[in-house]
């Protein structure tokens, strides 16, 4: 257990340079190139004097390196600063307003993708080499190639317009918004036993998470398939058959379990893909999450918020991969950190 703690410590320590590298990249690129939040927000009409004043307020008149050091100094204390536009709210509050939406979307898409991915991957892996396998492989490539906005729009057209059974945008009907507890509407509405909200939230989630989920399921199809084939080619599966174990037991207890382990190790990186895909999904479905938020703040050059968001993304990705590693260590007896 002590070494597990050491492992976590190592991982956390290694996250720091990662965030630093990304932040530094973004910090300097953003500030060296033209545009700044003051100009973007005051619009066209403000006087130069007023702009200068605001720039001073935001510390944008200081030398770049000093701004950088100031920012890092605050960051070390866990302070992401305040947004530079629209109310100058704390960046962390802004992020927390949008993050639950993204989290809800990504988790649901993840579930969709993993269910479809495992099912198709298993079918392909078991029927290796045949027509079914080939079609599953084609499915995996096609699914991954489905350009998210395009695919999303097709689903909107089919389910939102032609069949008119599902909403094509937004997270929930505003009047049905559940009491804010976690910010995840599904959980909040369950906690408050508000089933109307739950149904509504799920309806809103359906198309976006299907879009993202199906696209990413292609990756899992591929991973599960090759991993399963790999496992099935191993001696111990043959040994299991030689002992006369039941087919289902070989497939699930021995085969799938072993096959999922390498997939688990890749899950951390897959999550990054999920987050990236979420940006396009959010834009297509007007989903009020981190992606749309980041796009907007980049346009307005809200330096602190953009930096904060990038740092947050990095931290989140690191956290997910840490959790994945811990689960990995838990399920695989060979790994003991």
């Amino acid at each position, binding site marked *: 257990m002590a070494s597990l703690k050491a492992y976590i410590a190592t991982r956390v320590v290694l996250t720091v340079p990662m965030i630093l590298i990304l932040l530094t990249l973004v910090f300097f690129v953003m500030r060296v190139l033209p545009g700044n939040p003051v100009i973007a927000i005051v619009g*066209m009409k403000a006087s130069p004097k*007023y702009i200068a004043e605001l720039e001073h307020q935001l510390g944008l008149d200081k030398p770049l390196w000093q701004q950088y050091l100031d920012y890092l100094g605050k960051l070390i204390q866990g302070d992401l600063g305040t947004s530079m536009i629209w109310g100058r709210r704390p960046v962390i509050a802004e992020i927390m307003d949008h993050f639950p939406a993204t989290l809800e979307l990504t988790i649901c898409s993840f579930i969709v993708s993993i269910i479809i991915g495992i099912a198709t991957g298993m079918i392909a892996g078991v029927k290796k080499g045949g027509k079914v396998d080939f079609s599953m492989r084609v499915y995996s490539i096609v699914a991954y190639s489905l350009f998210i906005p395009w695919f999303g729009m097709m689903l909107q057209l089919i389910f939102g317009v032609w069949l008119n059974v599902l909403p094509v945008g937004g997270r929930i009907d505003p009047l049905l918004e559940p009491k804010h507890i976690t910010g995840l509407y599904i959980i909040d509405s369950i906690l408050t036993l508000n089933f109307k909200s739950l149904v509504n939230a799920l309806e809103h989630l359906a198309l976006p998470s299907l879009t993202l989920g199906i696209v990413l399921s292609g990756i899992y199809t591929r991973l599960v398939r090759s991993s399963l084939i790999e496992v099935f080619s191993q001696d111990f599966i043959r040994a299991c058959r030689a002992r006369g174990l039941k087919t289902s037991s070989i497939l699930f207890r021995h085969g799938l379990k072993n096959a999922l382990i390498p997939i688990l190790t890749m899950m951390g990186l897959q999550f990054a893909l999920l987050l990236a895909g979420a940006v396009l999904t959010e834009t297509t479905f007007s989903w009020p999450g981190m992606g749309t938020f980041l796009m907007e703040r980049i346009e307005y050059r809200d330096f602190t918020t953009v930096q904060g968001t990038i740092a947050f993304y990095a931290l989140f990705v690191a956290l997910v991969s840490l959790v994945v590693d811990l689960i990995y260590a838990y399920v695989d007896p060979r790994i003991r950190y």
Partner: protein
Amino acid sequence: QKPTPPPAPPTPKYADTITIGTTDKISDLDPAMAYDFFTWEVFNNVMEGPFKYKPGTTDLEKGIITDYQVQEGGKVYILKLRTDLKFADGSPCNANTLKWSIERVARINGDPAWFVTDLVDKVDVLDNYTLKITLKSPLSFFPAILAVPTYFPIPPDKYPADKVSSDNTAGGVGPYRIVKFVRDQQLVLEANPYYYGTPPKTKTVVIKFYKDATTLRLALESGEIDIAWKTLNPTDINSLKTKPGIKVWEGPGSFIRYIVFNTKIPPFDNKLVRQALAAALDRNSIAQKVFLGTVDPLYSLIPNGMWGHIDAFKDKYGEANLDLAKQLLRQAGYSESNKLKVELWYTPSHYGDTEADVAALIKEAWEKTGMVEVTVKSAEWSTYLDLTRKGQLAVTLYGWYPDYMDPDDYTFPFLHTGSNRWLGNPYSDPEMDKMLEQAEVEPDQSKRVDLYKNIQIKLADDAPIVPIFQGKLYVASKDTVGGIVLDPLMLLRYYLIYKQVGS
């Protein structure tokens, strides 16, 4: 036999709640900071100032005042406030409150503070319900400015005295009060029980925020919202018009779009070049193709429908006048083999996703002369503004929403030396300056009309800025919705809107 009286028409029943969808967003729920249409629209429903516009017109009427006087040749304004003004929580509103609110704007010095700081010298309370505003110099259109939310009274105990309060829901003395605000998601208004005037027709108004026009439209069709307000796509408007159960309302807009030439950057310092490009411009094709007729071509900076407007550019150049353009270009020394090279800039999202098409059509129109070669470039809003201000962009596309309803707002900031620095456009002409300054203080309306006419003629001749089109307002609603009033102010007055239920 007495004829039986016709059965009395059943009294229409009105819905308690109306949901309005928009793609706009709220910036700051604080009049000292907010400087955008949609937030002002909300202010106009939850607050009220000394003046307001009569719905459906650009005529001013009294708001929270019972009377006012203009003194010292337009320099001093004495306002008499109503005595029955109350904020949404029941606390009273009087001259002191208004003074505090105006001074707070100056103190915070936010984006719209210039409405106060540039104009007002001082504010004095004469008695509990009388306020005296002294201007720095006479201003013929000050009542129009007093209709701006920056001059709306707010409760001092709810707003910090010298800090912006962005998510404040305290409101003012308007017909509604804010009961809930979740940024970028929803705003819920409820009739203000303390409002002095006629109570609103609908008790609860919910505003839902959408990311884009398509979802907005779908939300209306699916019944999620009753009214789809700013801003629907032209195609959607056209197709909604034919949809049963949906009604499309159309009204004049005061939003204008135009091309800005940086008169310092060669070859645009050459008037002939600017004139040639102005002549070649094909406004109809933009209005018809990109906007499907949902905007009107504009031939002056002062919009159609505002007093003083003349079609100055049309008179001078006509429309898509290639012969004239070619002739001017030749005069300027260009030819088919020595083409005029133009770098045309646009910003991709600030003016909606139609902008790329607008730029493409301008390019096409100009290149039709055979003597122009246009390179289209684009930059994100912040960069675009920054580069413009620094005077680095030669030809840019911009748009303008008025601050107040007066031709002054459509001319002075564009053409007056120094005032147009924000465009990076150093157009400066003493004669033009003189006319503009005169028009600002001239109290006589007919003289002002003449002045603005000359200004427009000169503008068309110099062509530092070339107007393209003027927006129209569209609202799509369920056909049970009534009471929507559209005017160039471009504000929706929620308190007039109702929705019938049953029949």
